[in-house]
């Protein structure tokens, strides 16, 4: 494979603690190496006056699978005037909040992202999810199967059977080529099958007679029993409602006292996702307010939790979640079209378009809350930037979110443009925050932090020798202050160079190769468990609409380039 040496750039790498020093980055055979290991034929790239970071890692986005595709199908208007014709190495693409698979890969790569996680894979539709992942070029991807409303999980955890839960999880991760345990509105989505919901951690799930708290705690324990690379990844109950921050705190407090057990250097046992949607005070839309401070005060103290933000970007977008009852609630609020998908024994997703208008006070307050979370975070290695794509905004807006986080002036410009500026300032703390994140902190929040949380710290998110050569060069000179915050957005939108596993994939903001995309999945070994195997066979015979043989994602058609992370939980 080719060799590269990137010279004279300013390196920002929290993995090695490098804060903008001039250093060379050497690439050989897909890995970062020491300069001395390169031959004379290494291609030299001059990064003088530029910034070098590791490839960014997306910890939570909805970019592949049936609900994403449902969004594409029922929103032709999202594609209107967005078509990019075939050019150079790029195939045609379209879509704004729900881009086509090819456009998704290209857009991530152009911004310097080289790894991304699909945040909610319905296990029954893992084949569809993997077919889309296969067709998303360049970026390494994994997918989190959803477990929080799964009949097996609820039946085992009701009786406190952690070992059986873990055996089932190990089987399902293998069958669906999944990466981690995702929990969406624990119990609430199953309740939705009965026309109900669980709005607190103590609301019993109909029929199963288990509470969301038992599901969350049980899945954390099963996760640590297995020692999976990522922790239990939770979207708590009561998303999007005024006053829901108490439910959020009740959920994340369930992790208290539980220690991480894994060989990947992961230090958290719970990842709280799109925290912005879960940090609301007030009891109606009139007195709606930010509780970002309360949530972050707890998160800052509690070292075994990581979060991502879920920043509202003030765009027209498409909300989609495996929180079926929430989407039904949302269509009642905005009266836009609603779609729902029932997934048998596992989950139920909904889709509704949404316009985050700067002229609506609630949207503007949501915008402020997302930024507050990141600005209150004491440890950037535990707070990651997301937009919960496409729920709070398209992932293509990350550069704009970074601009707001790095520049108080940019935030003030946006606050001044709000119709209800006074309300934003009175209901949130955004106006009083002077903090401007540094490039080093941004590198932690978008690279080293999420990689560590995902258990990929030895592979990506940093530039230490031996790690995958995912390297990005941005047109940012850290020695020269930005004249205008918009330059931050422009620089992060289109990288000067991107290398993915040692292959040059982007040059001057254009795609130059489709790379060597891999599908990341976790192969967890457990002791033989005949009871769980019998339960699986029985459920397929009795309830599932397909046979077990048609359930699994196997072979080249679904996972052409797998990268299995091995975990051994046998006793």
């Amino acid at each position, binding site marked *: 494979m080719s060799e590269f040496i990137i010279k004279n750039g300013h390196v920002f790498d929290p993995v090695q603690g490098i804060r903008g020093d001039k250093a060379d980055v050497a690439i050989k055979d897909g890995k970062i190496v020491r300069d001395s290991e390169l031959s004379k034929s290494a291609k030299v790239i001059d990064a003088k006056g530029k910034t070098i970071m590791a490839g960014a890692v997306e910890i939570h986005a909805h970019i592949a699978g049936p609900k994403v595709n449902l969004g594409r199908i*029922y*929103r*032709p*208007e*999202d594609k*209107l005037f967005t078509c990019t014709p075939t050019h150079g190495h790029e195939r045609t693409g379209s879509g704004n909040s729900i881009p086509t698979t090819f456009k998704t890969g290209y857009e991530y790569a152009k911004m310097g992202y080289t790894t991304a996680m699909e945040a909610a894979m319905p296990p029954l539709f893992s084949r569809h999810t993997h077919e889309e992942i296969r067709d998303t070029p360049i970026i390494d991807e994994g997918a989190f199967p959803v477990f929080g409303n799964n009949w097996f999980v609820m039946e085992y955890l009701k009786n406190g059977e952690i070992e059986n839960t873990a055996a089932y999880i190990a089987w399902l991760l293998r069958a669906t080529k999944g990466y981690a345990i995702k929990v969406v509105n624990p119990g609430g989505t199953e309740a939705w099958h009965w026309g109900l919901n669980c709005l607190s951690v103590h609301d019993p799930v109909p029929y199963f007679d288990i509470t969301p708290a038992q599901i969350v705690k049980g899945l954390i324990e099963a996760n640590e029993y297995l020692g999976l690379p990522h922790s239990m990844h939770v979207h708590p109950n009561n998303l999007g409602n005024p006053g829901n921050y108490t439910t959020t705190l009740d959920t994340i407090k369930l992790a208290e006292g539980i220690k991480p057990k894994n060989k990947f250097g992961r230090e958290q046992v719970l990842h709280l996702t799109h925290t912005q949607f879960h940090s609301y005070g007030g009891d109606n839309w009139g007195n709606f307010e930010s509780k970002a401070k309360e949530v972050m005060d707890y998160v800052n103290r509690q070292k075994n939790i990581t979060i991502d933000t879920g920043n509202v970007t003030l765009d027209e977008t498409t909300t989609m979640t495996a929180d079926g009852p929430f989407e039904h609630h949302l269509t009642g609020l905005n*009266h*836009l*079209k609603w779609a729902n998908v029932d997934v048998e024994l596992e989950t139920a997703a909904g889709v509704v378009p949404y316009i985050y208008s700067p002229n609506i006070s609630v949207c503007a307050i949501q915008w402020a809350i997302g930024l507050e979370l990141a600005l209150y975070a004491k440890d950037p290695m535990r707070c990651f930037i997301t937009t919960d794509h496409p729920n709070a905004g398209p992932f293509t807006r990350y550069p704009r979110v970074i601009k707001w986080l790095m520049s108080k002036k940019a935030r003030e410009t946006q606050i001044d443009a709000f119709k209800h500026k006074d309300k934003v300032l009175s209901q949130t703390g955004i106006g009083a925050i002077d903090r401007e994140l540094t490039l080093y902190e941004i590198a932690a929040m978008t690279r080293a932090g999420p990689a560590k949380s995902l258990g990929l710290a030895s592979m990506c998110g940093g530039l230490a020798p031996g790690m995958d050569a995912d390297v990005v060069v941005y047109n940012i000179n850290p020695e020269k202050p930005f004249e205008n915050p918009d330059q931050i957005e422009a620089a992060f939108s289109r990288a000067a160079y991107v290398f993915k596993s040692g292959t040059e994939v982007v040059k001057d903001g254009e795609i130059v190769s489709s790379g060597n995309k891999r599908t990341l999945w976790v192969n967890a070994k457990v002791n033989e468990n005949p009871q769980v195997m019998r339960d699986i066979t029985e459920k397929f015979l009795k309830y599932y609409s397909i046979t077990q043989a048609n359930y699994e994602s196997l072979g080249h058609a679904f996972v052409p380039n797998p990268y299995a992370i091995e975990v051994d939980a046998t006793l």
Partner: protein
Amino acid sequence: METVTLTMKNIPALYLEADNVSPDAFAGKTAAQIADLHAYVGNTTGRLGDYFEVSGNAGATAADTKIVVKGDVTKVKYLGMKMSAGEIVVEGSTDLYAGAWMTGGKMTVKGNVQAFAATGMRGGELVIEGNAGNYLGAAYRGDWRGMSKGTIHVMGNAGSDVGMYMTGGEIVVDGNIDVHVMTHAEGGRIIVKGNARSKVGGQMVDGNIFILGTIDLMMPGFKYVDTVEQEVAGTKAKFAHFIGDIGERHKTRKGQVVYGNLYTRV
């Protein structure tokens, strides 16, 4: 005002997508530059000059530019798309999406237009001297934002699904109108001087429909309220006033529940 004349010289075998034929795209350009603007046929990209004889230079701005389109343009789509000012006169009939997403200016078609004319229109004036096709002033496929402002005058008949998801503006049809009028509408006004067939105002939550002729079959979701005398499009007459679609949600304005209104001449 400067006038640019486009004369069809080479009728395309397939359909020509001429989204560049608007005062906005022409403004500040010479005839040669206009002839060089792109136009699509199937999956190939050509030039306007490959199909049209272009004469006359455009004005400095869209508002100073008038476009006259001559010859057989029945196989040309998107004439006047997104125009914001100035004027277009099409001397014959044209295909889909005439004046779609226009925000200002005036477009006149002396013949007929096919479907999706004035899709998502946000301002300006569209006059169709012949007949209009389906989905006039409607929303784009999947969208919930139809015509919101501006006026459309059809001197002949109009097709089905006129004003679907309309939120504002006015459409006047001198002749008859086909099924599905103002479906899902949340505002705006449609006046039909001739007759309507059926499904008038289905799922409409706000807005006004006036039918000066007859309706073959009323929607069951409309309720008779009273008879009123009103002047509509220069005609003073008595109308039966219905509200609906009562099967839909309805917003309240100043404490009053708002309904769509359907007036039929008695």
